[in-house]
């Protein structure tokens, strides 16, 4: 069992290569698929893959089980949309501002929930998510409430958007790989596995936990803000708890604490949910059932099943 292939860094490298291969395979898809409808579906599934990667950084790598990823996507989308709607800020400035804003909010939330664990953390992040949604949905003068806001788009071309999302996915993936291979990643894993132990070995737990929160929320904000310009409409529905549920199921099915898992899970869940919707709107029944089964019996997800050594 102690051979080099079992070392974390080797497993991570394999993981990263597979994830990169999946992304490269995705790059070839527009050669075969030209229908704007299916390209749109693929863009949304990459949006979910980004959210899943962001949430996985927090839950899978750092052990902080947040229930707010969809809320941060909503905040990112609204950040861009509101800057555009009220102050006519160009998207090139609006999107980075929104990402910085969500990163700051994530850092703040991380500071606030620093001492909370398990169910307490889940409940606090859940309240944060719901409060954000209720406030945005009810501030009619400022956000137009449930009607949503129209956003300018970056470009008209579906293929262009597809490659933009894919490029962002690859960039986030590479960034995460670099982080996970380095000091930060090892510290996060240490915090996940044993927070007290990590602190006793001199790891600055506060700093690395809040860093994970800020980064994870920034990824979600980035995904949300791009998605807003893609769909050209942002509404509080982006932040529904159901969306968070989808993100969690994607990561659990794909494999928590891996890089490939969230991406494959997101693609698998979202694409087949399109198919199941045509079969008869049973996608959520099927996926929630699969999630329960995976959580109960195959904790490591598809990635764990695929890499299990006999």
């Amino acid at each position, binding site marked *: 069992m102690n051979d080099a292939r079992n070392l974390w860094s080797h497993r991570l490298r394999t993981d990263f290569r597979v994830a990169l291969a999946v992304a490269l395979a995705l790059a070839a898809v527009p050669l075969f698929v030209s229908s704007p409808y299916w390209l749109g579906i693929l863009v949304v599934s990459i949006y979910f893959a980004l959210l899943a990667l962001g949430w996985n950084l927090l839950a899978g790598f750092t*052990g902080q089980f947040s229930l707010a990823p969809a809320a941060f996507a909503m905040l990112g989308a609204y950040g861009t949309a509101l800057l555009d709607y009220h102050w006519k800020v160009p998207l090139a400035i609006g999107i980075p501002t929104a990402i910085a804003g969500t990163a700051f909010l994530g850092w703040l939330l991380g500071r606030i929930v620093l001492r909370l664990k398990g169910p307490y953390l*889940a409940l606090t992040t859940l309240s944060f998510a719901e*409060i954000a949604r209720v406030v945005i949905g009810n501030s009619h003068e400022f956000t137009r409430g449930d009607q949503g806001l129209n956003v300018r788009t970056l470009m008209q071309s579906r293929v262009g958007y597809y490659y933009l999302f894919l490029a962002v996915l690859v960039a986030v993936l590479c960034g995460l790989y670099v982080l996970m291979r380095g000091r930060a990643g090892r510290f996060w894993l240490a915090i996940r596995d044993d927070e007290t132990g990590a602190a006793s070995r001199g790891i600055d737990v506060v700093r690395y936990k809040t860093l994970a929160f800020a980064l994870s929320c920034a990824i979600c904000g980035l995904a949300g803000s791009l998605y807003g310009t893609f769909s050209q409409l942002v509404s509080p529905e982006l932040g529904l708890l159901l969306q968070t549920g989808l993100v969690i199921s994607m990561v659990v099915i794909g494999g928590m604490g891996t890089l490939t898992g969230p991406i494959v899970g997101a693609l698998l869940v979202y694409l087949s949910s399109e198919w199941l919707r045509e079969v008869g709107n049973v996608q*959520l029944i099927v996926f929630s059932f699969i999630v329960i089964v995976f959580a109960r019996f195959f904790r490591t997800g598809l990635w764990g099943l695929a890499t299990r050594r006999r």
Partner: protein
Amino acid sequence: MLALDLFVNGLIFGLFYALMAVGLAMIFGVLKVVNFAHGEFYMVGAYTYVLCAMKLGVPPWIALPMAAAAGAALGWTVERLLMRPLYAGYGSWSIMKDEYAVVVTFGLSLLLVNLVDKIVGPYPYRGPPLIETSRFALGPVMLNGQKLIAAAISIALLVGLALFIKRSLWGRQIQAVAQNRLGASLAGIDATRTTSLIFMISGLLAALAGALLAPLINPSPDVGSFPAIKSYVIVVLGGMGSIWGAMLAALLLGVSESFFAVYVSYDYRDAFGLLILMLVLIFRPQGLIGEKGRDV
């Protein structure tokens, strides 16, 4: 007179909240996990009541116990199939049991909502009231008849539960397991069966809350989400896991919410409870009334 009206109505809603929250608190007390599918126990109760009464023509007074039975059966099934890894000590989730519980109950909640949505349909149903008289005068306050009856039943249930926990053998076993699972097992208490019992009770109470409110709220598949969120607030406010804390906090939340909705903001009444939840968790994790070591 408005203030009195608000007070009485808030108190009544507090009673319904208490029915929900007490079960959640008991589950937390024994397993130290939050059941994110608790709202769906409520939903299943409401639907059982409405469908039995409307489709099968069962009289409302018989549909009510049927809803309770459905809730208890659901609670038992959930415990048997999904909660065992939390304490049986097998499987690799044992080091991440909080996460397991969140994922599995969250998934269950999605599953039940969408199953009902698919099988029964997404439209709201209106249940038949338990009593025909629509308005009662309670002193100077006018009340809806169904609300009054439901409140009376809730009081009876809560008092019954309190006596059951305090006095009966099973109730004492529940207290023992909540205090110390291992110790209780060593003393010969079947901790597994007790946990089963707790899930049945909590499913039963939540389902009854749903059934009692069904004529007032017109249940739709996602009807459980708000009562569930209220019960999280209450359980946190009352000190996680404390039954008496939950009862008190439920009344407190019911009353303060009904005042908040009228005097401050109706739109933000749901955010108000959640804000309380966050503040309590951050500044006073043991709850407003809870002490560090507490029973059940």
